[in-house]
């Protein structure tokens, strides 16, 4: 019933337009390197000044979903992935694209994302109210337990180094304590400065870390030269053959049912879901298809992409029912709610049910729009991918400055933005993930309040924090999550090493199967050997690299050049992996 009312709101032409705008912006930023949905929502936070809550939340939800779709386009057509959750897609999708099967990879990613997104949104619609009804009954002690889980998983699991993730989290918590204490109105860590009396605004920190830090970091090691995009051939209606559909539908469904539950628990977000899906597809494949893994297996795109989108919907369960964000983008959505003084937590489904259901309904609508928009418009996304990088990063800086200035309309905030941006630069440089810092900053004050309430009830006895049965269960689950995720991380690095080793072998002997050598492009593809562009076994795709380049709109770059560029970046990314400890 409530969902129908949500649809009634979301289907109003005005809101349909906002949803369309959101998914378009979301796809564009998903496609663009160096800029993701979390940064975009942070940059567009000024919208909350003028739009009413429903409109703004629909825009942000569209950006959230759109970013997921756009990321897959980048990882398939450009060798290095944009969203961390699409890295697995790059393993197979990029190989498919180099073998002339990019169109099929894009199509299976888009259709899979749609199916997974829709099923996962249905699951969200049914699961979330029950979780909320349960969550209303839990007290501060259980809340503290849930947030400890969120902190530790986000801090320890989002990055590659546990200690660096926890350091990032602690820095966020520290900034969160600055300013007036909400319970006693005491000043904390303001160092006598009136600018720090209200604390440092979350949006300022998020924009600084995501946007300025990223721009400075990329500027320090900007990849020069033309942007090499692998061309896509043929009309989009012929992209997937019967064989592709037959091989894709099971991975889509499996990916959905792996992704959604993983998204709901704070276990590292979509990354883990895509990896699990990829690993299971690899395991389930038989015979010749199994050999294809690492060289462009369509199952390895279909499953992880579905899992990615399903996890994105799953992340909304803890966000909307408990007020606990487990990814950077979810954290920014929470900030958007806070801007409107809408408390996010178990009461959300009761107090603001119209808004929540309009949001969920807009997810269905947005998913459909994304499917309809993505395939026919791929030419536009490819163009966006080729924006000159100086303009892209200069634009990001201007938007960041705009976002910072509009927090309090004082230039001091732009200076604070710069300082925090430099911090973000060094964090990236030294391998500290920035997302835990933002999550810590947002959840810190809520955590402190719940902690103090718990201890006030127990009259200062800390044992009360673990003696509640539900809290005890939550802590046990935390330990299980940790054990599981370390095991998965081990498997993931083993798998990456294996794939990298495969690639090295192929490059070294240079006499692999036709498909394999096409996937590598051949290290000597210097313009004279334009043979390695499409596998001979692909009757539908034109094998002429020149024609391929023409269709994609990749300016006047000749085909073989594109292939050789791809081969080089492929090799350098392999090197990356190998150098990482």
């Amino acid at each position, binding site marked *: 019933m409530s969902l129908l009312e949500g649809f009634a709101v979301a289907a109003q032409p005005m809101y349909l337009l906002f949803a369309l705008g959101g998914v378009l912006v979301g796809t564009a930023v998903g496609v663009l*390197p*160096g800029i993701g949905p979390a940064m975009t929502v942070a940059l567009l936070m000024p919208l909350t*000044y003028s739009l009413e809550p429903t409109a703004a939340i629909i825009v942000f939800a569209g950006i959230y979903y759109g970013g997921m779709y756009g990321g897959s386009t980048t990882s398939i057509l*450009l*060798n290095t*992935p944009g969203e961390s959750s699409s890295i697995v897609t790059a393993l197979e999708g990029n190989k498919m694209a180099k073998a002339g099967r990019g169109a099929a990879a894009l199509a299976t990613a888009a259709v899979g994302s749609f199916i997974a997104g829709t099923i996962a949104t249905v699951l969200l619609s049914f699961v979330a109210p029950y979780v909320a009804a349960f969550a209303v009954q839990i007290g501060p002690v259980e809340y503290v337990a849930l947030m400890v889980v969120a902190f530790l998983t986000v801090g320890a699991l989002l990055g*590659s*180094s546990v200690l*660096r993730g926890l*350091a990032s989290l602690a820095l966020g918590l*520290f900034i969160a304590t600055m300013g007036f*204490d909400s319970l*006693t109105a*005491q000043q*904390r*860590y303001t*160092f006598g400065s009136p600018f720090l009396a209200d604390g440092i605004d979350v949006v300022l920190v998020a924009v600084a870390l995501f946007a300025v830090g990223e721009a*400075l*970091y*990329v*500027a*320090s*090691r*900007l*990849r*020069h030269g033309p942007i090499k995009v692998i061309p896509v051939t043929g009309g989009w209606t012929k992209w997937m053959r019967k064989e592709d559909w037959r091989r894709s539908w099971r991975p889509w469904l499996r990916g959905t049912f792996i992704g959604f539950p993983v998204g709901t628990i704070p276990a590292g977000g979509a990354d883990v879901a895509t990896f699990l899906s990829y690993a299971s597809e690899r395991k389930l494949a038989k015979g010749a298809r199994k050999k294809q893994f690492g060289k462009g297996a369509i199952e390895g795109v279909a499953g992880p992409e579905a899992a990615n989108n399903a996890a994105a919907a799953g992340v909304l369960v803890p966000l909307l029912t408990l007020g606990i964000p487990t990814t950077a983008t979810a954290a920014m959505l929470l900030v958007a709610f806070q801007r409107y003084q809408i408390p996010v937590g178990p009461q959300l489904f009761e107090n603001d049910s119209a808004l929540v259901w309009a949001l969920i309904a807009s997810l269905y609508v947005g998913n459909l729009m994304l499917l309809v928009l993505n395939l026919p418009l791929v030419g536009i996304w490819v163009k966006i991918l080729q924006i000159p*990088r*100086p*303009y892209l*990063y*200069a634009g990001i800086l*201007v938007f960041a*400055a*705009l976002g910072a*200035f509009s927090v309090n*309309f004082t*230039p001091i905030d*732009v*200076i604070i933005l*710069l300082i925090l*941006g*430099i911090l973000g630069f060094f964090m*990236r*440089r*030294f*391998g*500290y993930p920035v997302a835990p810092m933002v999550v810590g900053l947002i959840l810190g004050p809520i955590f*402190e309040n719940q902690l103090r*309430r718990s201890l*006030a009830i127990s009259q*200062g006895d800390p044992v009360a924090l673990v003696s509640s049965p539900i809290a005890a269960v939550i802590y046990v689950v935390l330990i299980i999550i940790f054990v599981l995720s370390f095991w998965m991380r081990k498997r993931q690095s083993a798998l990456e090493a294996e794939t990298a080793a495969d690639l090295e072998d192929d*490059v*070294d002997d240079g006499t692999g199967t036709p498909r394999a050598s096409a996937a590598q492009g051949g290290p*000597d593809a210097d313009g004279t050997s334009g043979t390695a562009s499409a596998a001979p076994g692909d009757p539908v795709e034109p094998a002429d690299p020149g024609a391929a380049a023409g269709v994609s709109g990749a300016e006047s770059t000749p085909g073989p050049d594109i292939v050789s560029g791809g081969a080089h970046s492929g*090799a*350098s990314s392999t*090197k990356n992996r190998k*150098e*990482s*400890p």
Partner: protein
Amino acid sequence: MSTSISSPAGSGTTAAPGRPIGELIFALMVISIGVVGFVAGASIQTPPSASDIGPKAFPYLVSGMLVLVGTGLVIQLLRGGTGVPEEGEDVDPNIATDWATVGKLAGFVLLHSFLIVPLGWPIAAAVLFFGAAWSLGARPWFRNLITAIVLALVLQFVFAGLLGVSLPAGFLEGFGVFGG
């Protein structure tokens, strides 16, 4: 074949010699923030009316976490466990850090912050875009300039004019469509 791509072990170019020292300084900074947290936390007043653990406990908890984690990082670094720099499509891991560009970008953001009030947001934003694009290597300068002016005016129009974000319009003050 190509030696440059098949010898990953030998090419330690990404690890600039200064990096471990930089990382060490960063880890020490984490510790020192924690120490500052304890020192400055001591002066937080606990009102006698406080019925709970008071406003001091949580800052102490966080400061303790910073000191512990920072110490762990220092130990890890001294044992040779350096961080993995973030990867990205536009990040070339094989080139040395371009400090000059980073410095120029930071300088233009700083300049922007000083220009907003006297000259208005559009001019300050155009200066930032022009300077940043130039620092990042965009040429020719007149195309950068035109792009910068158009972008600044569009943003001023959309955010101040349409969405009502009060950006100071500067020389555009009085034109209703640009807000102010």
